[in-house]
């Protein structure tokens, strides 16, 4: 029995299936960048950024990319999971996974559900438990944000370390290049009667 509500919800679910959730994206990426990135896998129908209101500022961005068909979405997910895919910057790869209904702000209501509620008075024996639950919820949020902070710190550390390595590597290769270019290497080779590869 398909009420219009359910039909709309089904359509929404179908859209969810076609969408990929991309994570660990640089905040500097823009819609055209993402579009061109994922157009390699198929047609991108829509790109929607998930705004970050409550998280820390340095959090990587997440985006929902809606593809034309479910197969394309699957292809994106599997390729990105197997090979590191980089968007608008190296070398931090993005992360892709299947989208979930909870990720869409504009999702339709789940049909067939009615929410009910009641107030609990302080003299109710359950009040205590409710209080504890509330505290627990707060505790969980705090734990989560702490974990997030830690993760960001680690990411910072890793990136610093990597940029150092990159710079050193670069210097090393530059130096090698220079030697070959200057002919120093050639001269040394002649001296020691070794083979030397000619520059370029």
């Amino acid at each position: 029995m398909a009420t219009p509500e359910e039909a709309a919800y089904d359509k929404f679910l179908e859209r969810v299936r076609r969408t990929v959730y991309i994570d660990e994206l640089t905040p500097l990426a823009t819609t055209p960048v993402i579009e061109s990135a994922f157009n390699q896998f198929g047609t991108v129908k829509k790109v929607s950024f998930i705004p970050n209101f409550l998280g820390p500022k340095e959090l990587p961005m997440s985006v929902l990319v809606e593809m034309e068909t479910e197969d394309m979405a699957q292809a994106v997910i599997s390729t990105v999971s197997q090979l590191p895919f980089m968007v608008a910057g190296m070398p931090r790869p993005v992360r892709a996974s299947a989208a979930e209904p909870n990720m869409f702000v504009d999702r339709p209501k789940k049909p067939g559900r009615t929410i009910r509620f009641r107030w609990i008075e302080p003299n109710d024996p359950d009040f205590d438990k409710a209080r504890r639950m509330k505290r627990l919820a707060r505790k969980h949020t705090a734990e989560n944000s702490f974990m997030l902070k830690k993760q960001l710190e680690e990411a910072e550390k890793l990136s610093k370390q990597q940029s150092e390595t990159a710079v050193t590597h670069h210097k090393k290769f530059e130096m090698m290049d220079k030697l070959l270019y200057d002919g120093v290497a050639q001269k040394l080779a002649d001296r020691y009667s070794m083979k030397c590869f000619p520059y370029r």
Partner: protein
Amino acid sequence: MEESVASEGLEFKWGKKKGVGGKKKDVQFYESFTYDGDEYRLYDCVLVGNASEPDSTEPFIGMIIKIWEHANKHIPKKVKLLWFFKPSEIAPYLEGVPNVLANEVFLASGEGLGLANTNQLEAIGGKCSVLCISKDKRNPQPSDEKFNSADFVFCRAFDVGSCKVVDTIDDKIAGVDVKFIFNRACSEKEATAVQNIEADVNGKSDSLKPNGPLARGASGSVRKIEDSAFESSDCKENSNGCKEEKEKGHYQLAIKKSTLAEERSNKDSGSRGNHYNGKDQESEVKKQLTKQKSMPGEERYSNSFEASGSRTIHSISKKAQENDVKKQLTKQKSMPTGERYSQESSGLDDRPLKKQKLDGSVTVRDGWDTTILQNITSDGKKDTGSFKRPRDKVTIEEVPPEKRSFVKNRDLVVSVSEGKTTKTVTEKGISKKPSFGRAEDKMSADDNERNYQVTEVCRRPDAGKSKWFRSLPWEESMREAEKKGTLVLLQNLDPTYTSDEVEDIVYSALNQQCEARMIERTSVTIPHIGEALVIFKTREVAERVIRRLDEGCLLLSSGRPLVASFAKITPPGKPSLFSGHIKLHKTQTRREMRDAVATSHSSQPNNLEFDMAMEWCLHQARHEQASESVSKRQLEEMKSLRINFKLKLP
């Protein structure tokens, strides 16, 4: 018969002999051996180190299918191992394979390279437990405990010839009858115990042979272990016979009802010696029971209730008739009112009787949509009419009186007759709560679909802010609101709510107009806690709301009280640098590289960038793992609290 062979280094002893073979009958097969203090038997699963990566912590997993040594002692002892593939080993072939568990491995099957290998016996690095969770009927289903304690599980095979994951397991793999690959009928401990008993019974000396895996169907079959010139043991067949009976008993047990089952399990445990893990059986029983319960439950309540999903039978904590049985109204909406009540009330009557049979507490599964029904036990015998009202309560006016009555109900425990008469009084009582200005004070009993959303209709349209669109308007108004102090963060919502529902909730419960936006689920949000940002009209309103929600507890049907606080938004603007993206100087980069950065690409494994990317992948994976374990723990914490909560929700 044992031979001790002193080998260099680690201590080694042969176990039971199996037969001779080889062209010159100089090969001695064995069924077991002891190595380095561990006993290994045929069809045990072992870990073997990776020769090419001696320090890797990821050993290969194999099942011993042959053990032998030559008469010529210079030829080293060998074992033949049938491999299990870890997902990482066959990652490219796992495309489209659903539900790969964290510790799942794949049995090698088919023909070809990689199916099984012969290794030196000393290559074995240790034992491990691989549990078969395949739903194949030849496979004795493992209990939950075994499942949790197994090192690895498997239910699928990987065909090495076609390089595909297959779901069905053939009858013979690598010449080994599949019965040995499936689970043994009981754990090893039991096996030894049983065998001890059986050995005594049969008057034979104890053999350390593994108890042949028992397929329930194949009661009379003789297990043949294929090998050349193998002498099948009589003892084995006998033990199979005896075992089967016990097994059958064991399984029948699982199907019976709880009390009976418990009795029997106790009996059986006694008979099996103390090695038997009664818990094991209980958990099996538990499993069977839950299936059972949900079935009669449904019939009984004629689809107005569904017996709660998982009931744990704790012989210890007999809070018996624990009153927090939450029932889900599966088709509440579609149920016409009158029928519903009659069904429910009849269900009620039956319920207490049934409950009394149950030992142990009945714990409730957390359900998102819970109905008010509680304390069926206590009230079952009582005036079922009095239940009619509570049952469909939806509006808040009704809630308070009901709630009070339920409060008392809730305290009732075991005995059914413990109803309190005051209950009925309060039911019709006056609502203590200030009326929220709703027209009807008390919904008539016949009104089926009560939900406060009925009031949604009369929401006043606000100037231009009736719908949500994710773009600037919301963001702007949000930041405005934050400045003015009217932005409130609501937490502990059900994450599947939508913004509209949140607005409705606020309206109905707090009688305030607002604009709400649910925070989307991302990889960094807590999966089981939903959050929403709500904008109120004025700061006083916001304060009032927060205070109200803090002091009182607004309980939603998901079983969670709302938590409210002033919201702090991250300041707008994007960070200038994204950690992880390395920017080399312009002079340092060449044109190709700059192009590469500008376009998005997948990295190939042959350059530096790939290595760095891998490091990032590692970092991401680590964080995912951490989040997962944290949220699992948090979920459990929430659940435990919820169970105690004994939520009664109208």
